[in-house]
């Protein structure tokens, strides 16, 4: 694991960094205030939860509505099966996350902080609980540890707010956004734990320092979960703007020949290996190149795996994780996943493939939340990158695809 900034200090084998070590290594925590928000603006820090939204702007929008009673939710739910960066960060550097949450609360004038940690990530939950206990009373009084249900959509911002308000982690319709009306109707900042950790370091070291860590025009570092056909899968911290090839090298190289890379997780999409190699992993710049860093998943598919089977399994998971709040998502994803599974099994129905294209276009934008949109984007990336495999499967058994 590279030791750039978040994981500077003792190696992972040493476990969670204690408060004493944290204070000794980094010094006292600065205060959170309006100036910090401006610093974050200049630093170019964008959210690490998947949407890559500028952190400074988000804090500003909550502050503008805050009347001293705003709420901060540190989002460590991490419902994406392929992502492990948030749980790793919380398990090893809980105090960085807590620092960031406290800074955010002071900056947006919140009087309540919820640490929303995925209940299935037991090491992270334990480390955060212990870290809370190590904190002085003044800090600990404002912090509440809230285990999040282990479901895919539980980490969605409105689902987190809904969980606090009603005890059920289902996404709700926006408007109103959490920054306008969230927990108890108060302006709520929902921020990914990695983003908060970066903010905690920027508060100490300044925006210039953060920008200098990145490559080319990208700023700062990012946590990636590298998985799939690599020698050393795991969580690594890399400078923003480095290439996928460099990342794969850091992970010990690819086992076999890479066919495609899943970038961003189930909510991201496939990129062909040829295209991916030189792509710059910059959360801000990647969309222009046709990719999305999302929550930092880089998963390699080699040519011994069946891309259709992998895609079908992912679609199945996304369909099963539907909150069943609206027809287009529940029934749409179910049909899409069933058709994808049939194609993966090389036993498609007549018309499955063109129907995938058609239904996908119909489902997009029609859901009560954006879960179906993400699933459809993923599927469309699969249909595009694995076009020949899909066509071959559709033509299986001598049946024409259309």
């Amino acid at each position, binding site marked *: 694991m590279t030791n750039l900034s978040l994981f500077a200090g003792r190696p992972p084998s040493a476990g969670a960094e204690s408060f004493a070590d944290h204070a000794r290594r980094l010094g006292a925590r600065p205060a959170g205030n309006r100036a910090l928000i401006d610093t974050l603006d200049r630093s170019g820090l964008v959210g690490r939860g998947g949407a890559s939204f500028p952190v400074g702007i988000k804090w500003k929008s909550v502050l503008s509505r805050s009347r001293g009673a705003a709420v901060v939710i540190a989002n460590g739910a991490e419902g994406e099966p392929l992502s492990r960066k948030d749980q790793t960060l919380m398990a090893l550097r809980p105090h960085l996350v807590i620092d960031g949450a406290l800074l955010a609360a002071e900056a947006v004038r919140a009087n309540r902080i919820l640490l929303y940690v995925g209940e299935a990530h037991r090491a992270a939950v334990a480390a955060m609980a212990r870290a809370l206990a190590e904190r002085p009373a003044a800090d600990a009084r404002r912090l509440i540890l809230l285990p999040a*249900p282990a*479901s895919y*959509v*539980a980490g969605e911002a409105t*689902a987190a707010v809904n*969980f606090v308000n009603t*005890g*059920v*982690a*289902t996404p709700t*319709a926006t408007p109103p956004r959490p920054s306008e009306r969230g927990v108890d109707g108060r302006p709520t900042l929902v921020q990914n734990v990695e983003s908060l950790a970066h903010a905690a370091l920027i508060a100490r070291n300044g925006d210039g320092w953060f920008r200098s860590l990145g490559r080319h025009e990208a700023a700062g570092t990012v946590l990636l979960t590298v998985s799939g056909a690599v020698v050393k899968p795991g969580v690594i911290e890399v400078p923003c703007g480095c290439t996928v090839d460099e990342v794969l090298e850091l992970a010990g190289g690819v086992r076999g020949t890479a066919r495609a890379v899943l970038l961003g997780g189930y909510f991201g999409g496939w990129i062909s290996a040829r295209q991916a190699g030189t792509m710059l992993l910059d959360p801000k710049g990647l969309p222009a190149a046709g990719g999305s860093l999302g929550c930092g998943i880089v998963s390699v598919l080699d040519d011994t795996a069946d891309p259709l089977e992998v895609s079908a399994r992912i679609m199945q998971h996304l369909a099963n994780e*539907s*909150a*069943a*709040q*609206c*027809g287009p998502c*529940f029934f749409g994803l179910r049909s899409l996943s069933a058709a994808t599974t049939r194609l993966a099994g090389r036993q498609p129905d007549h018309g499955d493939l063109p129907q995938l294209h058609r239904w996908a276009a119909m489902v997009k*934008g029609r859901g*009560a939340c954006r879960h179906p949109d993400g699933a459809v984007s993923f599927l469309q990336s699969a249909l595009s990158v694995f076009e020949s495999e899909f066509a071959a499967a559709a033509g299986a058994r001598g049946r024409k695809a259309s």
Partner: protein
Amino acid sequence: MNNTALWYTTRGAGAVSLVLLSAVVVLGVLSTLRFESTSWPRFLTTGLHRNIALTAVVFLALHIVTAVVDPFTHLGWLAAVVPFSSYYRTFWLGLGTIAFELLLAITATSLVRGLIGHAAWRAIHWLAYASWPVAVIHGFGTGTDTWSGWMLVIDLFCILAVSLAVGTRLLVQSPDPLADDRARFRERVSRKVTK
């Protein structure tokens, strides 16, 4: 002669609009009941609801235009948009204006539902339950033919059809195909320990 033709057209279009709009309301209620059979899929109900609604708007426009340009009633265009602004049967005509404008809002929002979002669309659509009865009362109050037997029959038929549909809706639990799955999901993501 022109005047008479206009007048007959106004009345004819009014009666036809009433029948069409009643059908629209019935189809709308049937949509919420998710009625379907092997030969009658759900999109047929909603499709008819939409098509007949748009047809009704056309005939309603005819009804309004012929009424306004009829030199006999001296309505003026203002009466078509400002309720209770006509001298001719001020109150009953005003009701018609109100019903028309409610329908206009419903139609407009339905056409741009994608832009305004589902919640806003739904809120305005509820006004249908206000627009229809107001239109019926308008017809009773201002209609030349109200007490003609044939018109009474038409009125009765429309009122009966809508009442039946709404009554059924109130009594029958609309089958929600997602209810079970949604409950199961909520069970999964609910807080176990009460705080």
